[in-house]
């Protein structure tokens, strides 16, 4: 699936597309196919081998906060090595630079792609924002 096509299909504006560096370039490259044969060669019709992706339901992003002052930010690790130590540094950064922000560290339960309803409920009850570390 070409990402430019996907974004265009979603009705995203050219400005939004330009905000995804690297995406458009890669899609352009995939769109091209070098013509290597003589034009007089006979033509064949072949079938597309691709499966059927599910429809995508667009999810509006959550409204942003007017300020982080006095707010609690949950720092959530996906469990990959190093994420805990990295988020500890994020916590230290807030203490040094935005001491009015409270941070709470949590390790998400389950595999990296699994939902954690219990943690989600805790964040919704006690937090106003989330920073999630992904990678290792």
């Amino acid at each position: 699936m070409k990402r430019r096509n996907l974004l265009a299909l979603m009705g995203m504006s050219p400005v939004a597309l330009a905000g995804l560096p690297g995406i458009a370039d890669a899609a352009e490259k995939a769109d091209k196919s070098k013509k290597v044969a003589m034009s007089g060669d006979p033509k064949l019709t072949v079938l597309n081998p691709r499966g059927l992706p599910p429809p995508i339901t667009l999810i509006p992003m959550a409204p942003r906060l007017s300020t982080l002052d006095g707010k609690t930010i949950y720092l959530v690790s996906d469990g990959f090595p190093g994420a805990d130590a990295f988020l500890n540094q994020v916590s230290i950064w807030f203490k040094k630079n935005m001491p009015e922000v409270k941070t709470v560290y949590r390790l998400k339960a389950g595999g990296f792609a699994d939902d954690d309803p219990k943690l989600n409920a805790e964040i919704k009850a006690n937090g106003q924002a989330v920073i999630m570390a992904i990678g290792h």
Partner: protein
Amino acid sequence: MGIPAAPMVTIAFKDLAKTNAAKRGMPLQRISFTPHPVWGKTDDQMYAYLEGNDPVSGKPLMKEVVESLTRPLTPDEAKTGTVTPPTGAPTFTDTADNLQQYFLDNGMTDYMPIILPTQEKVDVMLKATSHKPDEVVGKMTPAQGAFPAWSFTVQQVAVNAVMAGAIPDYFPTLLAIGSTGISALFSSTNSLVSAAVINGPIRDKLQMNYGIGAMGPFNQANAVIGRAWTLMSKNLDGGGVAGETYMGSQGNIINYNNLIIPENEKDSPWPPFHVQKGFKPEENVVSFFFGFGIQQGQGGKGLGMKPIPHYHEAMSANVAPFASLFGALFILDPLVAHGLGDLGFKTKDDIADWLQKNTTVTVKDVKTMLFSGLPRGQAATLKDDDVIPKWERTDAYNFIVCGGQTNPYHQLANMSYRLSVSIDKWT
């Protein structure tokens, strides 16, 4: 949740993060990137990441994170609706050379020439099953939970089968593989591999090789079934796009056509693997394994013992360094299986029990290993010098007999059993 979130992603996962956010309905999610990796870096190095710039946007990283949580949404970011992603036209028409190039340029091959899937060739393939071309075979994803699963039909499997060079007799096996939804190109940074063990009379019907060179490039069915699985794993679920839906840091040569292992049932002293799993001997079955990969077992401890090499000791020593995240899969030449019998291991359970009891590690070693863990509930009570079983359960050990008896050798894989499915259901 309705609460603003700011993902911080290491730059190695840039394309994956952006495209996966789009595929999950949030194409403009505000993602900030750090240098890669964070794992193995000191606190000072990681703090320096935070004080530096996002390597993608070039903006101060933490300022960007704060802004992600506080800058009002644009209309595009608040968009709702449903879209169906495009996968291209149902057919492509061009010269044969141009079509080869088109498939290659669009990532639909393993970068080796394919058989062009004309309707005529696909129709011949479809005659090898009683299932209708538009029947949905299953759903597949490059990584469970991480990517939305795509569905696919009997005809779409047939197209990939033709591309790989399959003859119609192979088609039910490929449909059985597809029906599990198991991708051979699982997206992990670990460059994981998959194995399919084939049991039952179909091994002979397809003239598969379970003798000399069984796991090498010496047989059409062994090779092509494996290749087709890789093509299916690219095309049926959008997988195998390096940096986007495939993240193996180094890749794995086994992914070209996977580990296709027809068991040498006739020369084995033990019941075939599928019978262990509850199938009848005359049933045709494919069983799946998944994990880090495979290596040879020559030179292991105990193999120099006379008159009978102590295969069990070598097997134990060879798997001791494995990560316990996956289990141990042994591919035993029939000579080894019979040799184990001569040593008193009359069944697969006998050898599994011995290995489970005698393959041990210290708690201290486990603590220093990646992808290995202490037994659940015991971590607090164990001391560093305590010796514990490598795997707690005997079913972590699996055995397949395969090979041509030119020497009593074994290979071993740090791989776990997943499931077994009927091939006959797809004839």
